[in-house]
């Protein structure tokens, strides 16, 4: 057996040092076990994974392309042939919902990604630099908070859809992703800043500083890794908000255009038919609900699992 280099701090050396042969668990493993113990969280996670798979494999899962209309098969109730029924021009609702989930997830993930791109660096900068940077970021956060989120999004998307800078704002899907991303970074920013401010005062940071590490090294090696767990939770919980926002804006007619399927728009258009063709609104609404619930439960579970106070 080759000689194993023993580095301080890993589980293997604990076994080597104590001679018990049992290795201790890393924090990640502990958190994972805590997570798995919560049934609701696990259910949520499974739901999310399932929906992600549906979103990724949509072209293979959907029986037909989402824009394939079969006029003669219009308005069919759910049956073996059409599990979710067909809409007034013969779109297969199962295909529409599957692709709608794909749209929701694409928009949701991208929007959250944009929020992270904006919010996390801003929060990091505010927490680390303090002084004027902190002041400026906080004021910006206050301005954003002053606007009711969805109203601001409605305003922004109306502006963006009206043809302003049309070379940049080319497709409705991009537009809505951009708008949601740009209006939901505030929470992430504040969280990041709060994390940094709290962690900055911890003893190991003082220790690191006293051994001569510079600010950047401290930020990268100590602050960021410890700030990650709550950020994971926040990002996970930002997903359902983004999905719901997309559904809401499309419901209002401001988001995705036909024939690209959007769950929110499907729900909106089903209103006129609800007395007769109930399935037109039911399945899209169910899909939205499952997506939002899945992420919410998963996020809750993650929060409980990653919170060190509960060790």
């Amino acid at each position: 057996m080759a000689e194993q280099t023993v580095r301080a701090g890993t589980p293997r050396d604990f076994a080597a040092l104590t001679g018990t042969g049992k290795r201790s668990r890393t924090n990640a493993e502990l958190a994972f076990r805590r997570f798995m113990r919560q049934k609701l969280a696990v259910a949520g996670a499974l739901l999310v994974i399932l929906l992600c798979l549906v979103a990724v494999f949509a072209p293979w899962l959907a029986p037909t392309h989402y824009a394939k209309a079969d006029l003669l098969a219009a308005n069919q109730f759910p049956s073996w042939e059409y599990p979710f029924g067909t809409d007034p021009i013969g779109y297969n609702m199962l295909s529409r919902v599957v692709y709608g989930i794909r749209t929701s997830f694409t928009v949701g993930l991208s929007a959250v990604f944009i929020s992270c791109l904006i919010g996390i660096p801003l929060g990091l900068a505010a927490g680390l630099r303090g002084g004027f940077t902190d002041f400026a970021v906080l004021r910006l956060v206050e301005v954003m908070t002053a606007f009711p989120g969805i109203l601001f999004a409605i305003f922004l998307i109306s502006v963006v859809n009206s043809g302003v800078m049309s070379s940049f704002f080319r497709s409705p899907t991009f537009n809505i992703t951009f708008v949601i991303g740009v209006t939901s970074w505030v929470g992430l920013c504040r969280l990041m800043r709060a994390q940094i401010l709290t962690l900055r005062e911890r003893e190991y940071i003082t220790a690191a500083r006293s051994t001569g590490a510079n600010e950047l090294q401290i930020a990268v090696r100590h602050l960021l890794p410890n700030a990650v767990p709550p950020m994971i939770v926040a990002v996970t919980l930002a997903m359902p908000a983004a999905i719901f926002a997309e559904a809401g804006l499309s419901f209002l007619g401001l988001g995705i255009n036909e024939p690209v399927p959007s769950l929110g728009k499907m729900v909106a258009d089903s209103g006129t038919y609800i007395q007769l063709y109930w399935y037109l609104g039911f399945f899209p609404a169910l899909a939205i609900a499952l997506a939002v619930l899945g992420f919410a439960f998963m996020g809750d579970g993650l929060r409980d699992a990653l919170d060190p106070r509960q060790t």
Partner: protein
Amino acid sequence: MGSTNGDSNEVTLDGVLEHRSTRRGVLGGAAAMFAAGGMFGINTWRSSGASAATSSVRRAITTSLQELPADAAPAEKQMFVAPANLTTAKVLDFYEAVYERPSDASSDVFSEPLVRINKNFELQPASAESWSGSEDGMTWTFKIREGMMWSDGNPVTAEDWVATFRYGADPAHAWDFTWFFQGVLKNWSAVVAPAEGATAMTPDQIGVAVGATPYELVVTTEVPAPYLPAMLLYSNPLSKVGLETTGPLYNTNPETAISAGPYILTEWQKDQHIIYSKNEKYVGGTLKPMINQVMVKLAAPDTWFTMYQNNEIDFFEAPPPAALTLMMSDETTAKEVYSGVGDFPTWYIFFDVTLAPFNDIKVRQAWSHAIDRDLLKEAVLGPNGTQAYSWLAPGFPASQREAMSTIQNFDPAMAKSLLAEAGFPDGKDFPKQQLWLRAPSPLDKTVAAALASMINENLGIEVELLEKAQQDFTAALNSKPTQIPLGYVRYGMDFLDPFNMLSVWLSGGRHSWSNPDYDAKVLEAASFLGDPAERVAMFQEAEKVLVTDVPGVFIYHGTPVQLIKPWLKGEFIAPDANGITSLHWPGFTAMSTVTQEMYIGADAPDRS
């Protein structure tokens, strides 16, 4: 969307991560709000019965101008309720903005036009007790009925029409219907759309002037215009005094409202309803309505059917397909379904022929051959319309549907080959298209989605649907150059003459197509004073040019379906000369005799 905690520099991890309950509460609350608001239609929440103001007005109404039949509700309950699109209804006067009125419900009741029509589209005197044209057909004199008064005490005279037409022509007003009189009224085009380099004329130079007496209106035209009296169905005047004192929007506020018609504006609750009540100062007029109040309920079209089922409205047009299925499934409710010719509307896709790729006729022809109208009729339209291959609807003068049906016929193979010849085999490299829709109803959305799907399937071109508000669409359409590259819209007749429908496609009109041959043929036929049969043939030649050049793909001729409650009674619903029963176009307005042919039966629900 972001979490909104109170800010503090002393933050703990706990405080920043929101509590489980709050977050769930927010999500749950939002979900509940969306479910409630969305599923049931935000507008049906507002169960708007009459308000206090209306009740007091109603109590004061004790009679109708016409004696009420035995089975009628008492005079104070004679209220007709119809819905209008919440986002569209902004004004009530034709000469303020045509496409911003609640025309589906009721409008233009605050003055009488020069002429009106009955359910057989026959012209009758209204404000004008008689009229005559000169030998050359270019000077028309209308004798205004004496004794008509505005509710502010001023008499109705020819001055009011002159002021109104000048307002319509005023470039500062940017009226959305100026194209209608272009090439007809003298100097109108020179004012609203002056030619390049020519000096623009001013509104006071148009050919509408007071004649020998204040009760004589003289209208001069650019060409012989035998159809002019019929065109002047659209001549509800605004009050000259009102225009000068308050401004053209005097009818948007009950306090400044002035009327010379049988009704006056008594209430306008924004986004809720508009109420017109019997004008007690209506004198010298020609209408004797039995209805004493009209309520225009402002709501999103998606909610109208639910409102109809709850007896909140008495009538609406173009129910969505599912609603129609529901109504027809029951014997009793099936009796409330009526179908008529409406205003002989034709629904069509139009192109901006000055822009690529639609400047290539092969592309346009390909599109015209890619639509399966038979399938559309069978699967989507049902009783709402019939297939259209040409512009003039069946029953309209000069219509030649059969003869024209082979030009824009459904032929997917030809469509594909034409598109390939144009340089886009199988739609490759064809730019993705956006089809503009004008405030689409559920039926319009379904039809448009079906059309997009057919284009995709038969030509391989991607078409996205863009739903636009009525004003935005109309403004974009009318701007010069037009801002709509591809759209789907309808046009219905204004008066029963082929010149009317065909004039929509004249150069300088609302579409960018400009064909001198077509213009010449249409204008020549319009002014032709000879043999009527020959005139019809000339119009048909013109239509052929239109259909062949494909500035638009004609989709269907609407036969609007209407839902009418059984307590709307009277002569209006009796069959017309063709046996058709419906609430005839143009509906409950001073332009139509319907206004005095309707009453509310005693079995109507109480609306107080």
